[in-house]
């Protein structure tokens, strides 16, 4: 095998391995994160009845009022197709896909996830996201 074919085959194998891992079992860090949001949502509202991918999708696609007009949806930076590469609406910088199928690392680092909810929700909604909304959002993207 020439070094060239090795360079081609190795990344391909890595992609297969990652794909198999998601199909086999949900990521424990992501499950723990969702469990945490479920507990918070229950504490905030006794009527809490689980997360909804459909509501998460509506949050993702918008449009919303209350935030900055040029970022009236999560999709403004994360792109309407969550399996595609996004682009920061102001700086033009590329953003890795949000869909877990396309980017298995998503929603596995709780500090990073909380930091970004903290910044991105006010820019889009003009307020923080609730635990219900965070869980809906992650549930939607985990299924994409």
């Amino acid at each position, binding site marked *: 095998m020439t070094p060239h074919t090795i360079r081609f085959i190795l990344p391909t194998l890595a992609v297969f391995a990652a794909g198999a891992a998601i199909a086999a079992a949900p990521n424990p860090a992501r499950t723990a994160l969702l469990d945490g949001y479920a507990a918070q949502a229950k504490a905030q509202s006794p009527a809490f009845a689980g997360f909804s991918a459909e509501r998460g999708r509506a949050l993702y696609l918008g449009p919303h009022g209350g935030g*900055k007009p040029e970022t009236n949806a999560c999709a403004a930076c994360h792109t309407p197709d969550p399996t595609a590469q996004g*682009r*920061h609406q*102001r*700086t*033009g*910088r590329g953003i890795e896909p949000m869909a877990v199928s396309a980017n298995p690392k998503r929603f596995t680092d709780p500090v990073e996830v909380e930091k970004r909810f*903290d*910044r991105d929700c*006010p*820019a889009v909604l003009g307020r923080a996201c609730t635990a219900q909304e965070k869980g809906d959002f992650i549930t939607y993207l985990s299924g994409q």
Partner: protein
Amino acid sequence: MPRRLAAAAALLLLSGVAASANEFERVRPVTNDATRKECGECHMAFQPGLLPAGSWTRIMDGLDDHFGEKASLPPGPAAEIRAYLTGNAAGRGDPTLLRITEQRWWLREHRFRPEVWLRKDVMSKANCEACHRDAARGLYEDD
């Protein structure tokens, strides 16, 4: 449009032959992990050598309202990043200006038609990587 940009580059290159080498054409890449991570999410992590220490201090003082974005950090990483940026800052430039893209040397190198900045793959003057392939490695000479 790319052809026009190439022409601009060629002109700038020609005019650069006579001038002395630009000290910003190669700057030290970012070597601090916290800076790479926390300052490299919304745009590339700009190298400390692109701005004087006074500009970095003012940027780090204003992360709550960072060009209209909330970019605040916990005290630990904030102090580490501040020390790294100011400790490796440029020896020249105007410390009263926060932006690289408002520094005189930068404006001199980027006199393009206004449409260039609106191109979909550029979008912002701060999107160095759109035009300088190796910007993340601190290489801005012609490529």
